[in-house]
């Protein structure tokens, strides 16, 4: 699924790295616990989270993720945005809650570790 499609489905704002909107993600992970995210390697995944601190960006970087979506109207700090820019990670922010955001992406074909119609 293209990151731009994720943006549209979640009616999200682009916080940084807009130039990466044409890239694709092939799996997704929704969690506020970073160690749970780190437990399962996924290639080119998007991370959905309501946690706001620098470790969210570092976790995504360690996992080679290229997009983070902040749910529940959470906004990253300026420091976090800088870290994301250094790593070229697209940051989106949506008003939707975690459950709805994950459900929208899943039902439109972004199915966890598998690829379906993306």
């Amino acid at each position, binding site marked *: 699924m293209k990151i731009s499609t994720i943006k549209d489905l979640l009616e999200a704002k682009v916080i940084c790295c807009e130039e990466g909107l044409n890239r694709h993600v092939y799996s997704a992970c929704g969690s506020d616990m970073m160690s749970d995210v780190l437990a399962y390697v996924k290639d080119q995944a998007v991370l959905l989270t309501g946690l706001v*601190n*620098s*470790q*969210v960006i570092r976790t995504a970087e360690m*996992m080679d993720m290229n997009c983070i979506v902040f749910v529940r109207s959470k906004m990253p700090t300026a420091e976090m945005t800088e870290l994301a820019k250094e790593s070229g990670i697209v940051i989106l922010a949506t008003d939707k809650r975690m459950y709805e955001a994950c459900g929208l992406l899943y039902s439109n074909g972004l199915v966890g570790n598998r690829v379906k119609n993306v």
Partner: protein
Amino acid sequence: MSEALKFRFDVDGNDFTSAGKASVQVKKNLRQLGLSPETIRRVSIAMYEGEINMVIHAGGGVAEVTVTEDCVEIFLSDKGPGIKDIDQAMQEGFSTASDNIRSLGFGAGMGLPNMKRYTDYMDIKSTVGVGTDITMRVNI
């Protein structure tokens, strides 16, 4: 690569925000060395979890990464409280982290299991009241 390459980092135990900086640097260094993306990811995740542990449990410490022809070795050493029961600490979901740490997204009891999951060898030497030394290796 004929000679081993070594990187050494001091991990600041007083600054949660900067935790992980050493792992980010290691990831960059390994990329420059041309290691495979999978090897780099395994090393950096294992080291990142270790770094976070040193910050949240031990007040910081020292991290050394050695790259040889066959493997990447990560050595983490701290003078923290030590681990009372290593077998218990290795169980997924077991954590002694405070609610405050959990609110920061860690302390799910996955740190040490993740370090083992991503490495080919892991050894923990810990003495209560003295500190903890962890050696991990990822084969190239």
